[in-house]
């Protein structure tokens, strides 16, 4: 509606000088087709259909469904905030949130500094730099499911498991790794870090090439040694990208599913049940609680939205 009035008003100013344009004011179907409007719509059709059916419609449906009781047999019923109430009073929710936070915290402690240190060291390598980068990136190439199933073999609790053999060389173990509630989550995080660190290393390496060498020259004139150059030149220069990877990692770990689902299925004793696993169980764990599942996923999305809003605020403040 607004667009058509815009067109007419824009053309209205010219009607006195160019009478031929007056014809265009009557936007009949024929002129629209001849002007390429129909062809444009045909070309846009794949995008409109795919996004409409598989993105915009499901997103709208998620909001509607969270206020409905849906069991796919009877027509959906409006239940108000009942789904949210069920989820918030689910005794498993605090466990799942706690586990997700624990996963995120462990992933930060383990996975955040390692790629940074590796990238800074790698940037100093003069020969075969490509080999270093390729080796660091190799785990990212291994399909995630294969990586988890392979590490599941490594974590075998038997004394002749791969990791138990290796720690046995220095007289430790055998450990139950995935079978013990206290070591299960760190084991998951270790694999997740292995699988993801290479991608972060590549990002940092790219950022490190952007540090102007004049800054190092200037720091040397002021008498700075290697460590002070790292602390006062390199790291401040990476500040922006460090924040980006931090936020991305938190958003990623908040949605962790593959590792707990394949390694432990949430066990032992719910010690690895994450929020996403809970959503999956509501909907597809045999109970068919679709309304509860969407309610929980919307709440998770809201938390993630706060995180990204926070991120945009911090980055915009820095750029000023």
């Amino acid at each position: 509606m607004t667009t058509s009035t815009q067109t007419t008003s824009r053309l209205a100013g010219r009607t006195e000088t160019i009478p031929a344009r007056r014809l265009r004011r009557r936007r009949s179907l024929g002129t629209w087709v001849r002007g390429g409007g129909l062809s444009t719509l045909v070309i846009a059709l794949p995008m409109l259909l795919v996004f409409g059916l598989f993105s915009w419609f499901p997103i709208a449906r998620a909001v509607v469904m969270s206020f409905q009781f849906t069991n796919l047999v009877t027509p959906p019923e409006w239940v108000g905030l009942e789904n949210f109430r069920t989820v918030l009073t689910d005794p498993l929710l605090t466990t799942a949130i706690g586990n997700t936070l624990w996963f995120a915290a462990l992933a930060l402690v383990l996975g955040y500094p390692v790629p940074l240190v590796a990238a800074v060291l790698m940037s100093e390598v003069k020969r075969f730099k490509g080999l270093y980068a390729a080796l660091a990136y190799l785990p990212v190439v291994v399909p995630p499911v294969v990586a988890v199933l392979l590490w599941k073999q490594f974590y075998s609790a038997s004394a002749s498991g791969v990791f138990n053999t290796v720690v046995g060389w220095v007289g430790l173990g055998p450990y139950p790794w995935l079978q013990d509630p206290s070591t299960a989550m760190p084991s998951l995080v270790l694999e997740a870090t292995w699988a993801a660190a290479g991608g972060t290393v590549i990002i940092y390496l790219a950022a490190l090439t952007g540090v102007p060498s004049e800054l190092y020259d200037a720091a040397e004139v002021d008498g700075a040694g290697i460590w002070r150059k790292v602390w006062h030149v390199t790291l401040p220069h990476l500040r922006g990208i460090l924040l980006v990877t931090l936020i991305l990692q938190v958003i990623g770990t908040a949605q962790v599913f593959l590792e707990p689902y394949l390694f432990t299925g949430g066990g032992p004793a719910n010690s690895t049940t994450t929020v996403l696993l809970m959503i999956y169980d509501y909907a597809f764990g045999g109970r068919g609680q679709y309304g509860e599942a969407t309610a929980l996923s919307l709440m998770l999305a809201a938390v993630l939205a706060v995180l990204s809003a926070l991120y945009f605020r911090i980055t915009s403040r820095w750029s000023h």
Partner: protein
Amino acid sequence: MRMTTQTAERGIASALDRRRASVRWSIRLTTWLLLLALLVVGLGPVLWLAKSAVTPAQDTLRDPMALFPNGADLENLSTAWTRFEISRYFVNTLVLAVGSWFVQVLVAASGGYVLSVLRPAWARVVHVLVLATLFVPAVVLLVPLFLTVLDVPFVHVSLINSFWAVWLPAGASAFNLVIVTRFFDNLPREVFEAAQVDGAGPFRLAWSVVLPMSRPILGVVSVFAVIAAWKDFLWPLLVLRAPEKQPLSVRLPALETYVPVDVFLAALAISTVIPIVLFLLFQRFFLRGAGLGGAVKG
């Protein structure tokens, strides 16, 4: 000459730093230690997988770190491939990847063309709607998208156990559309205008002018599409319930329960071969630009 290249490519340690013996040796030592660590951590697990894929089950279970104590067993690979039908799941994975690739390229190229080059009056609204989906995490879509696939609006068919259930939703990637639109925005508009003056309609302009110019960006979309399809697990798990339709990623966890461990490891190794070959072929692409794009996408 040498001096200039050195200053241009300098890192944290200066040429002066490097002339000091202590610095030189500690840099050399860390370089070697780093290489060793990367070999053990990065290459080690992959090599262990390759070794165990052709080792008899008993050896892998009894002494997993020994190198072929009782010889190799190449039959694991053929057993996995034929008897446990890895070949079928492999083909399914390929079919899913090719179909997802086609839908993604079609939607991204045609959509980007409309939003950036043709720019009809309604393009701005669509553009905002596409960008808005970037901020909706995938988890929100999980259940409603599943119910949509179960009973597609208007046509009322179920796509469960059909490859279309994976192909079509793959096309709804705002990330693809954003990078293609941005690429098209940077193409010289004079070329399009010249073609339009010469009487080229929207289809002709797309086919003869824009498409040949957009090969680099469609290459990027293609690589991301194939990688994502190969990695995808949760979505195909939900919509492809019939084992004969499932890709490797979905089938492997099920195989783990009933296949001997040596054959299972052979199956894992087979699943890893194509991604690693692709990585070695397009190494430069992955190690230069893909890191950032992949991070944004994930």
